[in-house]
């Protein structure tokens, strides 16, 4: 198979609200190879989750993909009929959400829920579906999986619940898993376990992974490559080591500096001044300009253009050039 597994070009997802058009995703482009792990990082409201949901056509109304292209394994997903999208969901592109307590149905046993997910794509018997569910639960580290199929979500701990959700995503051996902050709701120790296991599972099965997170530290331990989003745009991208060691964009620098691990003990934490701009009234120039320590006149008037390929920074004054 030649070419990347997933290739997103100039994706634009807008929400038509009464107050105006919210451009949640505005011209996002990236590519993803088979088996690659991509970290998608940004603050709340940066458009990272909407990007993830756009990929499988599950943006909540009033949101719509208004432009761009998503090619998955050679097939264009933008404008694909709902029925055909549904055949991809869960089978070739799966998704794991933030809060397993909210995603699993509290009144159905996990066996029922996983069986429904199996039989959404394969016309296998109830028995075969349960067998597959039990085997997949064992793969994600749930002991006595066959017996646990009859348990309800509230009978599991938070970490175990997320494992059930991950197992549900793995049922059909998808080519791509989109994970939307799947460890945010969990204890730190469980987070580390799940991260390590996800990485191992993805590598062993050759599944590509898009890991959406607000947490640079998590992404750095997991991803091969990282995209940093701000105000609906990708402002920086590159191999995870390079981006974290020497960020080009002042916003990435700000994010790194505000990590508590970066600050000397007893010192005040660094923070990026100001707050994320309203997507309804973005400044005409660079959306980060009002908060940027390096901003000059051109930043306030002209939006920056994309520069070098490979390593990318959407900035008039990238750090390396300074």
């Amino acid at each position: 198979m030649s070419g990347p597994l997933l290739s997103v070009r100039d994706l634009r997802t807008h929400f038509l609200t009464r107050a105006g058009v919210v451009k949640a995703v505005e011209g996002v482009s990236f590519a993803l190879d088979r088996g690659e792990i991509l970290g998608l990082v940004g603050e709340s409201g940066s458009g990272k989750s909407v990007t993830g949901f756009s990929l499988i056509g599950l943006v909540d109304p009033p949101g719509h993909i208004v432009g761009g292209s998503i090619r998955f394994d050679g097939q264009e997903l933008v404008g694909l009929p709902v029925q055909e999208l549904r055949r991809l969901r869960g089978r070739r592109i799966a998704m794991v959400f933030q809060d397993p307590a909210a995603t699993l149905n509290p009144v159905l046993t996990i066996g029922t829920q996983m069986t429904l997910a199996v039989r959404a794509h394969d016309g296998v018997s109830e028995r075969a579906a349960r067998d597959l569910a039990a085997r997949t639960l064992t793969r994600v580290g749930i002991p006595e999986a066959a017996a646990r199929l009859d348990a309800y979500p509230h009978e599991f701990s938070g970490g175990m619940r997320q494992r059930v959700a991950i197992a549900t995503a793995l049922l059909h051996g998808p080519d791509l898993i989109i994970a939307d902050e799947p460890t945010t709701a969990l204890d730190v120790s469980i987070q580390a376990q799940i991260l390590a296991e996800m990485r191992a599972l993805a590598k062993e099965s050759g599944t590509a992974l898009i890991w959406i997170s607000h947490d640079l530290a998590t992404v750095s331990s997991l991803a091969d490559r990282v995209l940093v989003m701000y105000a609906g745009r990708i402002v920086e991208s590159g191999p995870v080591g390079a981006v974290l060691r020497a960020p080009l964009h002042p916003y990435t620098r700000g994010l790194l500096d505000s990590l508590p691990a970066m600050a000397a003990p007893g010192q005040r934490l660094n923070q990026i001044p100001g707050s994320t701009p309203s997507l309804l009234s973005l400044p005409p120039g660079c959306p980060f300009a009002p908060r940027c320590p390096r901003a000059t006149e051109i930043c306030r008037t002209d939006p920056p253009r994309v520069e070098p390929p490979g390593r990318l920074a959407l900035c008039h004054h990238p750090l390396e050039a300074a």
Partner: protein
Amino acid sequence: MLGYVIQRLLQAALVMLAMSALVFVGVYAIGNPIDVLISPDATQDIRAAAIRYYGLDLPLWQQYLAFLGRLLQGDLGRSFVLNMPVLDLVMSRLPATLELALASVLIGAFIGIPLGIYAGYRPNSPLSRGIMAVSVLGFSVPTFWVGLILILTFAVNLGWLPAGNRGPTVEVLGVGWSFLTWEGLQYLALPALNLSLFKLAMMIRLARAGTREVMLSDTVKFARAAGLSELTILRRHVLRLISIPLVTVFGLEFGSTLAFAVVTETIFSWPGVGKLIIDSITSLDRPVMVGYLVLVAFLFVTINLIVDLSYALLDPRLRRGGRTA
């Protein structure tokens, strides 16, 4: 789970005790039945004898205790007017009302819930707006008027269905039922439809509100992300998630229809308990009123108990003493 059942049973017994006291005192306050029972020109001696015979000379609390004692042995007293055991009297009428009430609640649920789920799933479609208009009508149009219109349309003008009465019944377990024969069903159809309109409206509203809320939840989004079809999501996920309020209203409506189907029963000359209670009120037949109200309270408490227990079936989180990891 057993503790839950015992706790509910104790609560039910307490409610019954309180209810019997309220009913007894309430009915005691509404006038002297002796004036109805004996002719005004009876002598003072006959009057005093009658009062003594019915125990009306005793203080209220003694009368209540005697009533309660008999009640515990299953004796609801005898009708002053018909001189028949109240229990037999009510039981001869109850099956008719029971099947009418059950039929109307079932029609309301089986038609109302799918319509409501659809209206919640597609809140802006023209069909959903039509469904909501029907539910507004169901709430606001008076039952007696709808009953008359139904008779006028289906019995008088079209001649499809009988206008009233119960028609033939089939004996099962010693009581007569209409729903077992085609002809009986025809007699049942119009009154049941009449009573079901309000329930239909209620079920539509509840199912719609529940579905709208659940459709926005992460559970539905996750099911969609797993590739489940919309129909499977509605049938397997949404229906279960919205079932608790639906079961609650189903139980309450069933209970209140049993007790107060009187308007419809009158219009369709349906020989149920509603007619009985109206007659006993006009003739101040105290044992029948008290016995009827106690039985109705008993039915209500029983239905609510069943509803409470079914919560535990519908929502595993309510089962106490379950396994937790």
